[in-house]
Every structure is written in structure tokens, then in C-alpha cells.
């Protein structure tokens, strides 16, 4: 049991790193900053692994460990605590957050070298890891919300990291404001839960909810859908997905860590955590599945037309989180978390490799201006290929196949699944293969259009190699049931999560589905090769036709969601504020200010600099006070 008492250190170490860097960072040499920034996360990762091994070999009673540090506050019997809760779900999230963060921090020491904001970067990154760990380890929703807003803040700070360019600031503000819509819904959901349960302790809510609410109860519906709102904002799902592609304005390690591997999956974590609520509100769970399916298709189509390598990856992230939502929606909780883990490995890898390419190309993001980098940057090429293989779910040899295939199977086979949900996921898998390998072929094959400017060093190569290996082999901890009985991941998850309910007669269709998905992925790769390398003329000719141009532009702009929101939200607000510049509310506040000024003018005359005057005031005041005490 001894080692569990160190649980609080896992979030505390990054916080300490942040404090040191924030206070002394400007006076420290860059080397020390890099060491502190990495060491705080590295130690947290090490501690997580040790605790994790302990947890797996000798699980604590009830499969959870709770550590209460202190009571946050206490009002009318509502007393949330600063308390950490470790169970298999939070263990997996903590492991991924600390481990992937460590690799990305390591990579950043090289990537950010020479940037004037070096200490600021690592301070923000450490603060982010602290917030994310608070989010996943919190035992009550209020502490979770603290972490939730903390990661939102860090996301804002890091998207606008290069704040001297105005576009980056716009992107940062957009991310902040769009997620605010979701967060507002979420906090209202929390109020609703407090009103019903008088507590925000997650486990208490989960155990009490089934006795308080019937399945399909109206309150359960509202609670679930309001929390879903928060999840949609943070995880960039329809209709709040528009901020994520613009969030690529930040440094590439930030995109890798926050906008791909960890923060954007917080929504998945929230829904998985509150799974009982969603089972009590089947309508909302269906909405989750539909939103996931719609998002993965829209993002997949949008990714097809992007030219910026980071935007392709951003849309693919939205699309992959769509898969996780699809899994959550059909009740395949374990599959969603499994895909989260695998996705964190390969998407972190893809962003880091893309970052290495961007460094080599002197901040060039347009992949059509790169080309032929295969020979010049072999390590980056091979690791990028592994990551792309996992993203496209190339059968058998990549980890992505095992996780995505599981989701597709459950989308069809679960009692909550349907043929249409499966079809969306299936088409999405096809699109994924096409846009992923379009990116690979355009960037690394063909003729070289630009010289390699900066070769990747070891601090860039080693994280890439580690993540590359994981993108290949991490899937083997969850072999499909049809192949053999080896699934330690889901058996770990099922200790605390309900198992997915299969519809009758679906078990033996798994192999058939796997074959179909495998073929479609390979077909996608072939199509990408055909149209991007072998005969790009065909595509080019199509794009010059009227219809082709329209489709290309429509996909490139991400289904015009930005333009739509501009018309229905931004412009009315701007118009209203324009015609309503001087309304009476302003007058009230102006009057308060003027009153203050007036009083100031009167009383400042009493301060005339004569000692005698002050003493008289003192005596007069004392006389009044004495009179009141003695005679009233």
C-alpha cells in the first residue's frame, strides 16, 4: 500500500516545475529550464508507472485508491475535497498524460531551442500537465472542473504563444470563446447535479443516480446533455469543432500534446467517467453516437482538401475523437479508452514528426511545397509512416487497426449500435486511409522541392522512435475476441466499466468485418497512391472544373462552419453592440464613477496639511464616539 500514498506527487511535481519556471525562469540558463521542465514530468511519469505496476499486480480493494488531501470548502453540507481517485480509467489516462507529455517535453527542448519564450513555454507546458492530471485524478466534479478550465487556459496561452502575430491571438481567442459555450453548459450541468445529489463526488453520484432516476428520466436527460455540451466543446466535436484547426497556430509540440494527445480527449474522459448518467439517458447516448459519427465524416472530408500538414492532422484528430464518441455512444466504454490511448501514441508521433519536417523546411507548412523527404530524413520518414499506418488502421501490423476495428465492430454489434452508425465509421475509415497516405506521399515521396534546413537531433529522434514503436505494438494488448482470448486492457477496464452488450448473433461476424475494414483501408492507401503520385493530373483536372472547385473549397473550409457561425452569431452581436453603444446600463456605471469622483473632490479638501486640523478631527471623532458609548 505504501506507494499509493505518493499519488499526490503525480500532479504536484508538474506544479512545482511550473512554479520554479514561472518565478525563476527568466534568470535561468536554457539548459536548466529544459532539465527542470522535463524532469518534473519525467518523475511524474516514472511514479505513475511504478504505481501502475503496483496497481496491476496487487490491485487495492474495490479496484480504487482514494487520497484526500484536505477539504476545499464547506457550505451547507456541500463540501468538495481536494481528493484524488485512482482506478483503472484514471490510471490509463494518467499514464498516457504523463508518459506522452514527457516525450513531448523532451522533444520540445530541441524544437523550441533559440526561441525567446523558452522559459515561458516550459512553464505553460508544466502548468498544462498539472491541470490535466488534476482533471483525470479528481474524485469530484468541481476539482475536475478546475482542471478542465486549467487546461483550457493553458491551451489559450499556448495557441497564442507567438503573440506578436495577430492571427495567433485571434486563433487563441477563438479557441477560448468556442470552448466557453461548452463549458457554460457543463457548469449548469454541475449545478443541476448539486441540486439533485447535494454532492459532486463522482462515485457518490454514480451509485446514487440509478436509485434516484428511472432510465429515461427528464432530469437525467438534462444532466447528461449539459455535461455532453462541455465534452463537445473541449473535444472539438460537432457543432463546436471549429476552433481546433485554427489552434494549430501554436508551436507544434503544443499541437501534439494539447490539441491531439491529451486535452481534446478530456470530453471522452468525462463521458466515460459519468457513464452511469448516460446509461440512464439513452437518448443522450444515442446523440453522442450520432454526433461522433457525423463529426468523423465531416472532419474526414475536410482533411481531404487541406494543404497545411498540421491542418490535415487537426482534422484527423477531430475525426478520431469522433470515433471515440461513437464508441461511447454505443456503450463500448473500454473501446473508447483503448482508442484514446492508441490515438495519443500515434497522433502525438505524427505531430512531432510533422514538427521535425516543419523545422527542416524553415516553418513551411504547405506540404505541396515539401516532397521527397524520404531519403533526407529517414528516421522521421519511417516513424511518420508507422504513425500514418496506425492512423489509417493498416491491418494486423499497426496498433490503430486493433482499436479502430473494435469500435467499428461494436458500432454494428452492440445493442445500441446500428448499421448506419457502422457505415459512417466505415466510410470514415476509408477517408482516413486516403487523406493520411495522401499526406505521406505528398510530403515524403515525389521530387524534392525544398532543401533540408535543419537535421533532426537525438532529442527529436528518440521520442519519435519510442512513439513509433508504440504505434506498432501497443495494439497487441487487446487482440480481437475472434482471434484468441487475450484482452488484458478491456478486462482491466471492465473491472469498473460495464461491458458492452452485444446484439444476438453478432459474435461470429467480427472476422468478416475485420476483413472488410482491412481491405477498405488498403484500398484507401492505393487510391492515395494512384491520385497523388502516379497520376496527379486526374485530380488536377477535376479541381479545375466548376464542381471540383466548389467541392475543394467547401472541404478546404471545413464545411463552411466558420462562415455559418460568422453569419448567425458573430455579425448579429457586432451589429447589436454597434447600435447599442450608449444604453442606459452604461449610464448607471458612469454615474457611479462620477459620484466617486465628486466625493473624492469634497473629501480631498479636508487634507490640508495642518497638524492642528487633523488633531481636531481626531478629538471630534473621539468625542462623538464617547458620547455614543456613554449616553446612548
Amino acid at each position, binding site marked *: 500500500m505504501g506507494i499509493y500514498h505518493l499519488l499526490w506527487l503525480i500532479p504536484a511535481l508538474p506544479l512545482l516545475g511550473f512554479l520554479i519556471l514561472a518565478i525563476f525562469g527568466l534568470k535561468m540558463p536554457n539548459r536548466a529550464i529544459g532539465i527542470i521542465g522535463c524532469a518534473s514530468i519525467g518523475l511524474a511519469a516514472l511514479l505513475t508507472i511504478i504505481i501502475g505496476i503496483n496497481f496491476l499486480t496487487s490491485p487495492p480493494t474495490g479496484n480504487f485508491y482514494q487520497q484526500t488531501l484536505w477539504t476545499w470548502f464547506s457550505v451547507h453540507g456541500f463540501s468538495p475535497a481536494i481528493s484524488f481517485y485512482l482506478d483503472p480509467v484514471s490510471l490509463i489516462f494518467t499514464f498516457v498524460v504523463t508518459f506522452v507529455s514527457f516525450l513531448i517535453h523532451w522533444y520540445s527542448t530541441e524544437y523550441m531551442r533559440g526561441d525567446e519564450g523558452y522559459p515561458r513555454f516550459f512553464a505553460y507546458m508544466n502548468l498544462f500537465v498539472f491541470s490535466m492530471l488534476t482533471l483525470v485524478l479528481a474524485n469530484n466534479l468541481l476539482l475536475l472542473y478546475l482542471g478542465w478550465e486549467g487546461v483550457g487556459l493553458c491551451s489559450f496561452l499556448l495557441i497564442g504563444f507567438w503573440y506578436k502575430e495577430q492571427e495567433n491571438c485571434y486563433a487563441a481567442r477563438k479557441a477560448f470563446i468556442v470552448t466557453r459555450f461548452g463549458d457554460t453548459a457543463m457548469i449548469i450541468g454541475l449545478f443541476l447535479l448539486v441540486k439533485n445529489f447535494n454532492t459532486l463526488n463522482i462515485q457518490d453520484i454514480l451509485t446514487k443516480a440509478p436509485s434516484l432516476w428511472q432510465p429515461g428520466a427528464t432530469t437525467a436527460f438534462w444532466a447528461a446533455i449539459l455535461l455532453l455540451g462541455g465534452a463537445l466543446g473541449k473535444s472539438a466535436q460537432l457543432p463546436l469543432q471549429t476552433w481546433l484547426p485554427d489552434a494549430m497556430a501554436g508551436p507544434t509540440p503544443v499541437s501534439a500534446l494539447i490539441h491531439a494527445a491529451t486535452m481534446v480527449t478530456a470530453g471522452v474522459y468525462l463521458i466515460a467517467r459519468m457513464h452511469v448518467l448516460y446509461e440512464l439517458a439513452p437518448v443522450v447516448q444515442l446523440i453522442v453516437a450520432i454526433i461522433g459519427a457525423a463529426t468523423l465524416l465531416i472532419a474526414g472530408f475536410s482533411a481531404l482538401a487541406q494543404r497545411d500538414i498540421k491542418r490535415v492532422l487537426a482534422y484527423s484528430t477531430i475525426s478520431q475523437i469522433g470515433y471515440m464518441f461513437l464508441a461511447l455512444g454505443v456503450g463500448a466504454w473500454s473501446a473508447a479508452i483503448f482508442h484514446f490511448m492508441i490515438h495519443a501514441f500515434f497522433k502525438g508521433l505524427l505531430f512531432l514528426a510533422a514538427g521535425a519536417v516543419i523545422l527542416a523546411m524553415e516553418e513551411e507548412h504547405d506540404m505541396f511545397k515539401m516532397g521527397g523527404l524520404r531519403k533526407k530524413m529517414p528516421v522521421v520518414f519511417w516513424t511518420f509512416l508507422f504513425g500514418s499506418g496506425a492512423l489509417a488502421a493498416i491491418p494486423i501490423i499497426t496498433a490503430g487497426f486493433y482499436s479502430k476495428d473494435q469500435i467499428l465492430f461494436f458500432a454494428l454489434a452492440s445493442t445500441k449500435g446500428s448499421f448506419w452508425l457502422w457505415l459512417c465509421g466505415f466510410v470514415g475509415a476509408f477517408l482516413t486511409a486516403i487523406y493520411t497516405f495522401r499526406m505521406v506521399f505528398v510530403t515524403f515521396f515525389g521530387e524534392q522541392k525544398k532543401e533540408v534546413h535543419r537535421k533532426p537531433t537525438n532529442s527529436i529522434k528518440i521520442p519519435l522512435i519510442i512513439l513509433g514503436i508504440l504505434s506498432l505494438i501497443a495494439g497487441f494488448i487487446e487482440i480481437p475476441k475472434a482471434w484468441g482470448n487475450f484482452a488484458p486492457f478491456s478486462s482491466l477496464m471492465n473491472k469498473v466499466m460495464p461491458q458492452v452488450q452485444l446484439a444476438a448473433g453478432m459474435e461470429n461476424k467480427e472476422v468478416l468485418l475485420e476483413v472488410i475494414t482491412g481491405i477498405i483501408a488498403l484500398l484507401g492507401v492505393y487510391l492515395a497512391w494512384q491520385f497523388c503520385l502516379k497520376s496527379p493530373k486526374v485530380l488536377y483536372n477535376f479541381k479545375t472544373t466548376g464542381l471540383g472547385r466548389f467541392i475543394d473549397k467547401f472541404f478546404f473550409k471545413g464545411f463552411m462552419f466558420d462562415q455559418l457561425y460568422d453569419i448567425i452569431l458573430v455579425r448579429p452581436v457586432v451589429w447589436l453592440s454597434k447600435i447599442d453603444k450608449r444604453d442606459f446600463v452604461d449610464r448607471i456605471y458612469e454615474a457611479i464613477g462620477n459620484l466617486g469622483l465628486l466625493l473624492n473632490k469634497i473629501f480631498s479638501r479636508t*487634507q*490640508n496639511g*495642518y497638524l492642528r486640523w487633523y488633531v481636531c478631527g481626531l478629538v471630534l471623532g473621539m468625542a462623538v464616539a464617547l458620547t455614543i458609548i456613554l449616553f446612548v
Partner: protein
Amino acid sequence: MMTHIPPNEGLLLAAILFLLGLIGVMTRRNIIYILMCIEIMLNACGLAFVSAGAKWMQADGQVMFIFILAMAAAEVSVGLALILQMHNQHKSVDVNVLNQLKD
């Protein structure tokens, strides 16, 4: 052998002394006189404590007087140092000169 003084008369004397000191603080312009008037007020307080202690037969009054004595000594040393500085910088001991902090 001390003559026994009725406590009420002691308190009355203390009040008169205190008022005298207060009037001095309010009317004087010379800062040295102001400081001395403050001393008078402090000693009036001390007398009030001692008289009250005698009235209720408690030693606390005399203890407080010793406190006041110590504090008055400290206050005078600081006050005199300030007066020296004031004389150095303004070549005057008139408090009305010191009105630069007015609004």
C-alpha cells in the same frame, strides 16, 4: 509617609492635565511644545491608571504606568530625532511648514 489622596480627585486631576495637554497640541505651532504636550497627556493617562488602581485596590494600574513610562521614553527619543531632522531640513520648528503632503 505619603498622604492619602482620594482616588476621585486623582482622576479629576488626570482629566484636567489631559485636557491641558490636548489644548496645547491643538494650539501650539512649535513642534517642541507639541511634543511636551504629548508627554503631559501621556503622564495624565499614567496618573489616571494609578488612581484607578488605587481605587479598586489593583496592582494593574501601576503596571500599566510602568509600560507608559517605557513607551514615553521610546517615543521621546524618536520624536527628538525627528525634530532634529526637521530642523536640519527646514531650518524651522514650525509645524505649519510641514504641509507638503496636502492634496
